[in-house]
């Protein structure tokens, strides 16, 4: 599925409640390649759009575990495995000294890892999106925009426009980036 779609139908809403109501109806409609572009995250929109909770936390768990094991094995190799030395009479396996670095490594991989995964997921785990430089939507300013991509199997320009207008959207229009009518 291509990341960006150049053709689709847009419709504007002006308050989050309208957007939520519309989302519920679009979810129940026959269209699947649809999305809502909003200036800020709206509470409850996932259920309204029929999505499950984000899977990112699971990835974070694995990343955290990876961070811990990486740190512990590396420190063990350095302090005991490779060249154990006598630092101030302490035993080589001075495990209290390993805790801080392990914790930091866990936070490092978990936090930054999940941020990167989230950004990538935002690009991959989605439907073809209107490219922001090609299709102006105003969704980052003040509009709550509904978007139905032409890549949807049941897409028909007039039928979709009619359906979006029936949702109560304003400024419903069919956009085609290649044709230039943006």
């Amino acid at each position, binding site marked *: 599925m291509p990341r960006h779609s150049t053709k689709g139908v847009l419709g504007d809403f002006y308050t989050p409640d309208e957007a939520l109501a519309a989302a519920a109806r679009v979810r129940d409609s026959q269209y699947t390649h649809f999305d809502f572009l909003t200036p800020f995250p709206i509470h409850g929109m996932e259920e309204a759009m029929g999505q499950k909770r984000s899977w990112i936390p699971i990835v974070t768990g694995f990343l955290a575990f990876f961070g811990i094991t990486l740190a512990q094995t590396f420190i063990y190799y350095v302090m005991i495995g490779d060249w154990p*030395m*006598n630092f*101030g*009479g302490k*035993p080589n396996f001075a495990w209290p000294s390993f805790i801080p670095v392990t914790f930091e490594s866990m936070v490092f991989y978990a936090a930054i890892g999940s941020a990167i995964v989230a950004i990538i997921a935002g690009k991959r785990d989605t439907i073809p999106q209107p490219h922001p430089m090609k299709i102006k939507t105003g969704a980052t300013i003040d509009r709550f925009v509904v978007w139905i991509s032409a890549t949807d199997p049941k897409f028909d320009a007039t039928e979709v426009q009619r359906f979006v207008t029936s949702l109560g959207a304003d400024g419903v229009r069919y956009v085609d980036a290649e044709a230039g009518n943006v």
Partner: protein
Amino acid sequence: MSRNDLTRDAVAHPHTHREVPGTDPAPDAGSLEAAVTADRGLNRRDFLRVTTTIAAGSALAAAGCQQPVETLVPLNQRPEGMRSVGRPLFYASVLDGVPFIARTREGRPILVAPNPAHPSRTPLTVRTQAALLDLYDPDRVQQPLSVRRGTGSPAKTTWAAVSDEVVRGLKASRDRVALLVRPATGAATRAAYDEFARATGARIVEWEAFQPDAAVEAWRQAFGDARIPTPRLDRASLVVGLGADFLDIAGDRREADFADRRDPGHPDGMGRFIAFESRLTLTGANADRRIRVRDSHLPAIACALAHQVIQEGGVGPLASDLDVADALKPFAIDTITTAVGVPADVLRGVAAELRAAGPKAIVLAGLNAGASAGGLALETAVHLLNASLGAYGSTFDLDAWGAPPTGGLKALADLVADLDAGRIDVLIVAGPNPVHDAPASLKVAEAFAKARLVVSLNDRLDETSRLADWLAPASHPFEAWADASFPGDVHTIQQPLLRPLYATWGLLDVLLAWAAQAGAGGDIADAMAATRPAVDPKAPAPNTSPAWHWIRAWWARNFFGTDVATPEFEDAWDETLRAGFWTSPSSARSLPSFNTGAVSLLADAAPAAASLVELHLHPHFAHLDGRSANNGWLHELPDPLTRITWGDWIAIAPRRFDAMGLKNGDLVKVTSGGASVTLPSYRHAGLHADVVAIPLGLGRTAAGLAGNGIGRATFPLAPLVGGRVLRVGLSCEIAKAGGSEELAITQGSEVLDREARQLLPAATLKEVRADPQAGTEQEGGGPSIWPDRSPDKQRWAMAIDLSKCNGCGKCTLGCQAENNIPVVGPRGVREGREMAWIRVDRYWDAGRDKDWDDTVWDGPLAVVEEPRTLFQPMLCQHCENAPCETVCPFVATMHSEDGLNQQVYNRCVGTRYCSNNCPFKVRRYNWLEYSYGKTNPFFRMLVPKLAMGEILNVRGRLPMKNNPEVTVRHRGVMEKCSFCVQRIREARATATREGRKLQIHDGEVVPACMEACPTGAITFGNVLDPEARVRRLADSPRAMRLLRNLGVKPSISYLTRVRNDDGQV
């Protein structure tokens, strides 16, 4: 050229051709060619720093990491006997009457250590240890100069020119010549002087600032021309000192003997030392009982003791003598007790102890104490007491006789009189610096001006040489031949350790050459003839030093009784050079009885009307009379008691100090006898309330870049009275002069409360007899949660016996020479950045019973009026659980298998956390580039003190003092005592070479501090070896390892400092 290349691969010192007066320079085919590292570009460290600082990844990749190209330059022709490069050679020799063994590497001396086999048991003085810096001093004059009495800048000239001028002068004014030299003890040397005098009709004048004039005069009055027996403090069970300063000034056997009897377990019982003195001297600090008196009252107290012992006790042959009785009558204890301010029962107690000890007692007067108005009376009273107690023959060794010291003021005064009268035309100054250290009233400068020709043989353009016509620099004693004699008919040959660095010539060589040219016959002519190369080219080139020939001829004739050319002489000569001494058979001698006529001198012992404030001038501990004022090591060696470096001070008693509203460093003006000096003041504990003490010797204006302007000239304060220089008991006025000058003090707080902080084991003899572990109690440490991982076979450890340690600081100097420790200069010390790896902490013992407030520790009055002084050499303790190793993130310091705390200089990046975490604060940091030059003009303008490191450590030939076995550290690197790991590794390598596979015998590894310690207080070895001496000391009940409650487990055991309180006073 990186420092280590110079030291490690260098073949020998740079050698310059020099003309030898009177002989054509011998072709040096096989000279030790200067080692050159061809690589003129960036050395390794600068290369790394430049690239990483730019740190552009690509730049780094492009430049690549090429190591600089260095060369390895072998010898051209190896002289026989020079085994190799890389192995040290040892020479036994003598300097200023102190025997030593010098370690040399590739032909240059790098360390001066004591010669333990020398029968005179003379310890090293700090000036001998630091002589290396005088040898390599960049401010030494490098070739003869025409000074023209200071008019216009001195012009370079040649030896030939100077010799012609001098010889013409000698011939012209035959009997109007004077030779001013330092007192020489060597038999052949004095013979050479006499021969020079006979050849040129010259008068030999010996001068040194600090000579016991009073003692010599009193001895002559008491015993005629008898030679002076050697005091043996190790035989004395009681020593009474009257201003005694055998630890401060005299470099003789008393220092080591005194320490022998300080062992509480000594078979003949622990010695007891009672000291009467005004200033807290290093000697007084080691006393069991110290009584503060004015210097002017010392003669009276001596007579009082004599009266009590002889008249009341009826002790000794003179008890019934009427003259003695009359002379002593006015000094009965009850009559003088109020005048001298000492309680009568104390004086009676001391007298009683003297009578009880009998022949086992000894009474000593100090060299400086004799330089007072009543000096003769004091010395006579002391001779009287010793004679009566029967000390001569018991605590004075009659077999070990010494010639009476020469070089007093009388000879110099006569010379100045002759000069003023115009009876002297040619004056040759060889060594002394009377313009600086003679009394001002003598007006030496004006007298010198009257001579027609003045030639100086000193090593630099010092105060005296500036008034000369010519300066023909004599070599440093390390570069020339001479000899020295010691009490007990022991003689040592002063052999050169290296070829002269500059165009200089040995003192004896010059005198013999000039004498020969001036027409001397006999032995001098033979000596000079021997230096000319024989006709036959095949014959080996002769030694070009006439002094060498002279000494051999003289020793052969007078000592060995054989001819020079015989093999027996060669064997005896080589054996003397190897051992460092030769003992001539001495005839048994007896001492004539005490000449009762001398008691007339006791008359002027009467305590004069005490002036308000008495001035006490004493020689600076390290500089004596300022002869090595350009020596960085000596300036940076803290004074044992005031801990002041780089400068002098006026010490004022704490009560008077506080009354005058002073703070340490406030300037005080002292006026005495017409002269006045302004000095920074120092609150000195233990000083008599009405005495102020000032060190002599500093304040030189012509010493060199490092020494000029350090301290103020204080010699003018010492007046000339009755043919003697008076230095103590002078009346003076002191006044606050406003303004202050920060003193460069190396120690923080001086007061140690041993109940609160058990950091130093100290106890009295009675306590130790009751409980051997007395004094070592400390707060216990809890159990360790870590499994023990200390080594099982080999663990290096050290034991320091604080009873034997007298706080002299020679361990500090020995360590500084061995381990290339840089000098940081006065500003460095003021900023708290001195670099010594071992320091001797000096505490005032301050039990809490003395009710003072503990938050501010600047020495509360109750503690410092009459302090108990505690000395503690403090160095890296090589702890088993070293807190410094845990916190170093760069793996730069960790523990070795044999118990050493390793500090790896090339891995250290300088976070300084290890120094912060060390409870003993013994780690030192290279704050600036001390051992390498920093030359960028822009940053030198921004940070002027950048240049100090170069001036003190890198200029000229100074880097030649570096020990090639120890890394010379760059800035930004932490350094600390390594237990002389280079000597441990050398011992392991020797064991491997001899196939002993790492069994190192006890005593085979001697660290530099242990080697330099005159009293044997430091012992080092493998503590896990049951037979090792260090193990025995570590297990002794007196041993204590510090800070047990911290659980760091240090490897150094300190043995209790015991004070002998078993007496009536």
